[in-house]
């Protein structure tokens, strides 16, 4: 079960510390099904990176691998220059990875406020938590109104806000967003992406999965295109938008 033989133990200096996320040739299996094969991907400090691809291409799996919900069979996940091998998802979360997962996954029988509090679960600084709560409320004023409502009873858009807000409450250095626009009205989608840019402007690195490829690439600096579990294309966002392949496959018909 050891793959140390072909380890990729490159010294940290090679990538530099500004590589926030660094996936090196990861292979992920669900049972016998190969979900990701040899995916290599990096996100640098301060970037917004978009991950696009059709349903089932492995985008969500990639995020789940980064946040430790699944462990890769081979290859290595490095976060902030350190390997995450042997770490659990909870530990990785405490490293400073905020993950707003697919399907939002709120705690439905807890209030909005409690959900946000859970995001700050592993933090000790009360003052910091309070400021962050304030800033989440500033980002999403609607949540302040719904403060004591059960999360399960919110509308889709509000739930998405809670999900992002909860991820922000851990004051993450990097934020993983899995389809933030899912099921949202167009106006809300624009608003959410506005917020995403705002969060990024404050210094949080963002890795984003988005169905609406054009919107995603317009928001992002760089992009990766996944196809059936491996990276088919990658590069600066403008180049990807301009690429005829992408246009045909993802930006319309």
């Amino acid at each position, binding site marked *: 079960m050891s793959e140390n033989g072909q380890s990729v133990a490159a010294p940290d200096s090679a990538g530099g510390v500004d590589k926030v996320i660094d996936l090196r040739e990861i292979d992920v299996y669900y*049972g*016998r*099904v190969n979900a990701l094969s040899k995916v290599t991907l990096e996100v640098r400090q301060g970037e917004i990176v978009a991950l696009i691809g*059709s*349903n*089932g*291409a492995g985008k969500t799996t990639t995020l789940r691998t980064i946040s430790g919900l699944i462990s890769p069979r081979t290859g290595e996940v490095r976060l902030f220059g350190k390997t995450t091998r042997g770490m659990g998802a909870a530990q990785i979360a405490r490293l400073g990875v905020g993950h707003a997962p697919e399907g939002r996954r709120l705690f439905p029988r807890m209030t909005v406020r409690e959900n946000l509090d859970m995001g700050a679960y592993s933090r000790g600084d009360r003052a910091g938590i309070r400021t962050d709560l304030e800033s989440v409320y500033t980002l999403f004023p609607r949540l302040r109104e719904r403060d004591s409502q059960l999360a*399960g*009873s*919110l*509308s*889709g858009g509000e739930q998405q806000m809670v999900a992002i807000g909860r991820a922000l409450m851990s004051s993450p250095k990097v934020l993983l967003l899995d*389809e933030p*626009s*899912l*099921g*949202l*009205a*167009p106006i809300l989608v*624009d608003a959410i992406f506005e917020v995403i840019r705002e969060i990024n402007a404050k210094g949080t690195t963002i890795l984003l999965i988005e*169905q*609406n*490829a*054009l*919107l995603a690439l*317009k928001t992002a600096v760089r992009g990766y295109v996944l*196809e*059936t579990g491996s990276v088919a294309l990658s590069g600066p966002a403008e180049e990807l938008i301009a690429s005829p392949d992408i*246009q045909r496959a993802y*930006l*319309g*018909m």
Partner: protein
Amino acid sequence: MALLELAHVSKRFGGLLAVSDVSFNLDRGEILSMIGPNGAGKTTAFNCVTGLFPITSGSITLDGEPISGLPPHRITKLGIARTFQNIRLFAFMTAVDNVMVGAHWWMKERVWDGAFRTGRARREERSVEQRALELLDLLGLSRYAGSYAREMPYGLQRRLEIARALATQPRLLLLDEPAAGLNTQEKKELMQLIARLRDEGLTILLIEHDMRLVMEVSHRIVVLDHGEKIAEGSPADVRTNPRVIEAYLGTGASNEMQSA
């Protein structure tokens, strides 16, 4: 008269109105596609039609008979078969057995026939198995007939699910994102398959994200957003409908679309 008719169908989950007052008809021999962003309520609508979810209000009729409130297996018996978005095969049954389960409801074999292996049971088993193998053959799956569904490649699993649905002898086939995760070649084959099914007389209701496939095979398209129907019409109408472009195809995407 339409084959399937949804009239003011709504489905509520707690505080969430997943499908809201949706009405549309599906005529015999037609391919109707449902499109819309993820979470727009398309799959929920499917689940309502196939009896997995009881609907909150409205009515669903097949051939003029109300089917809302019937359990899923009865709806299958009335002639609606489906596939699932996240493939739901019987993972540890062989491909052939998976298809044979599709024949379950119309097989005449009773428990005692099976227990005593009566001639009737054996004959029927054999002919159903033949039919299953034939279906596998027609769908290009015969190589995998004896392997567990779970061991098959992803794309073929999708096809096996269609084979299973066809074994139930449906009049109406509901396909939930059949092209998801398929490569270009497989998508092309899927398109041919859908066309062939239509030619053989099957009515099809399709949920799909791949616009090229949708535009090519559908007679009509229904667009859902936030559980509501925001547009309905021919592919040409829908692709130029500004509401659809705004809600689904992306605000900036209209240029590319017109050029396509």
